């Protein structure tokens, strides 16, 4: 598990100006800390696609936002992400909580090696959003990093560097609840 305090410190180090979010249980602690800290404003949105359009506008206006959403919301964003941050080549870091990751790991299934099909996507013991997360990022050409625990915290800075280098969105997948 990664401590929310360490994530917040990384965001401050990167000079992040806004956090656009639809909350979930995994990001709850981080959002509570952000709200209490008050250094970086939180912009709550009604749907995840909005987060990417607003973040793109913030970047055009000279700010440095991040998007904090769950992987279910990532799937919702589809055309919004494609037509804003990707199409406009915005160096945007997206923190994505990875619902279903633990079950996926326990199953031994690799979404890199196995073709997805209806029977896999409807299995009771798996969360289909976990099966679709990394293939979707790959399809959208979004590089990603993993944040499993405190020792991975530098992956956030790596994501900011990669986003700047490639001039495009980059994801950080948060695989466990923040504490």
């Amino acid at each position, binding site marked *: 598990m990664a401590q929310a305090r360490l994530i917040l410190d990384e965001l401050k180090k990167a000079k992040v100006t806004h956090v656009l979010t639809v909350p979930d249980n995994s990001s709850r602690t981080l959002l509570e800390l952000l709200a209490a800290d008050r250094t970086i404003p939180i912009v709550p949105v009604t749907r995840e696609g909005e987060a990417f*359009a607003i973040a793109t506008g913030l970047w*055009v206006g*000279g700010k440095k936002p991040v998007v904090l959403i769950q992987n279910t919301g990532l799937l919702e964003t589809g055309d*919004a992400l494609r037509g804003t941050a990707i199409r406009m*080549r915005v160096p945007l870091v997206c923190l994505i909580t990875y619902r279903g990751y633990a079950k996926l790991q326990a199953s031994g299934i690799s979404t890199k090696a196995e073709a997805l099909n209806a029977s896999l996507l409807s299995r009771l013991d798996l969360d289909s959003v976990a099966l679709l997360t990394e293939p979707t990022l790959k399809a959208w050409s979004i590089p990603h990093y993993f944040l499993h625990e405190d020792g991975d915290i530098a992956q956030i800075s790596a994501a900011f560097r990669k986003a700047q280098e490639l001039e495009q969105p980059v994801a950080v997948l948060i695989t466990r609840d923040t504490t």
Partner: protein
Amino acid sequence: MFTKHQFLEPLARLRTDQIVITTMGVVRPWARYSEHALDFASADSAMGHAADFALGIALAQPSRQVICLNGDGSMLMTLGTLVTIASSGVKNLILFVVQNGTYEVTGNQLTPGSDRVDFSGLAKSAGFPRAYTFDDAQAYECSLEEILSGDGPVCVTVKTEPGSEGPLGRRPDEPAHYLRCSLADSARQLRGALLDRGAD
């Protein structure tokens, strides 16, 4: 109902240094009145996401007014954005909703609820402090100075006749100045213009 000319011409006349974001059926018509460096076409982009994109710019540039010329079909795709705008605390965003009742660029198919949706009523309910609806060109023109002054966010529904704009694209020979380069280049040009100008 009034024409796009009756909507856009007075607005272009009163516009000073505001950022103007256009989409769908007003992208090309606006370019007939304006070649300003702070014009941006949300074209070849994400359907329905001009208003939230404009909100991002408004949050980033609080000392400068942002005008979004949205369509009714586009607004219907992201109605939640009205709530996000009102909740954001932004004061410098003016959201026009051009209500012609159709998806103009795809052949004027009717939008859902085209004859009864009250966008300004929705905006008021969402928390916009000011909202207007016009179906008369003279009343609109008389109110425009007031609309452009004071704190927002403001929602202005203008009931216009359906037009005949075709599909939007970006290419070097496009008559509309801001459709001649890629969306990514266009975004960088606007960013460059805003950062160069600072808070003037």
